[in-house]
């Protein structure tokens, strides 16, 4: 891993078309601005991880689980329709 030290207001260039701006440093927080082509996706790592972990968990679903869920859904739906 390349490790660089930067001051507030300084930048890092990645390749020809990505620039990271270190806008503000306050205590333990850093405000970062990212300039990148629109086809490059930029996300907070934890958001990316959450979606990925949900996918991992969802990928092992079996037909049994789904039919239980379908039944449960119909049950709730019928009850909702009766109420209205």
């Amino acid at each position, binding site marked *: 891993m390349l490790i660089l030290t930067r001051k507030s207001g300084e930048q890092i260039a990645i390749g020809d078309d990505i620039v990271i701006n270190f806008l503000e440093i306050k205590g333990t927080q850093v405000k970062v601005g990212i300039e990148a082509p*629109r*086809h490059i*996706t930029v*996300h*907070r790592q934890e*958001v*990316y991880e*959450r*979606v*990925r*972990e*949900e*996918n*991992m*968990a*969802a*990928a092992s*679903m*079996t*037909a049994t*689980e*789904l*039919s*239980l*869920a*379908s*039944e*449960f*859904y*119909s049950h*709730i*739906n019928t009850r*909702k329709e009766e109420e209205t």
Partner: protein
Amino acid sequence: MKIKTTRFGEITLNDDQVIHMPHGMLGFPDSQRFVIIQNKENSPFLWYQSLDDPDLAFVITNPYLFMPDYNPQLKDGVTQMNWQMDGKGFLKTLEVYVVVNIPRGAPEKMTGNFMGPLVINPLCRQGLQVILSDGGYFHKTHLIFQMTEKGQGEDSEDKVGV
């Protein structure tokens, strides 16, 4: 073509049923071709079966059944995929699904990942899992809670306390 799957055995499908996902589903970059398989009549749930990995299938559903005012920001995804925006109604032609997680033996606790919707462009049969960083949507939205609670569309994160 004929495809082998773990859950459904060998299935036969036409080329025009295949959905191409150049980036795959998050965490599964090697599976890039999928097909939607109807689970049961009158069930809101569908299977999203990989054609590249017989084992890999997700349960997906229509998010609007559970959150009628769901409004994911899809423009960045459209740009990323280089989909041509033909007129104002284009975004409405996209199909939107969420991946469902059903805990074993506890269907009442099933959740939908509203933070990472699956978006399909039916015109070119391409798909993308979009990550919504700032939309206020949660990755574990309780589906039954959404159905039963009168105040639909509220952020379930606060109430469920996860």
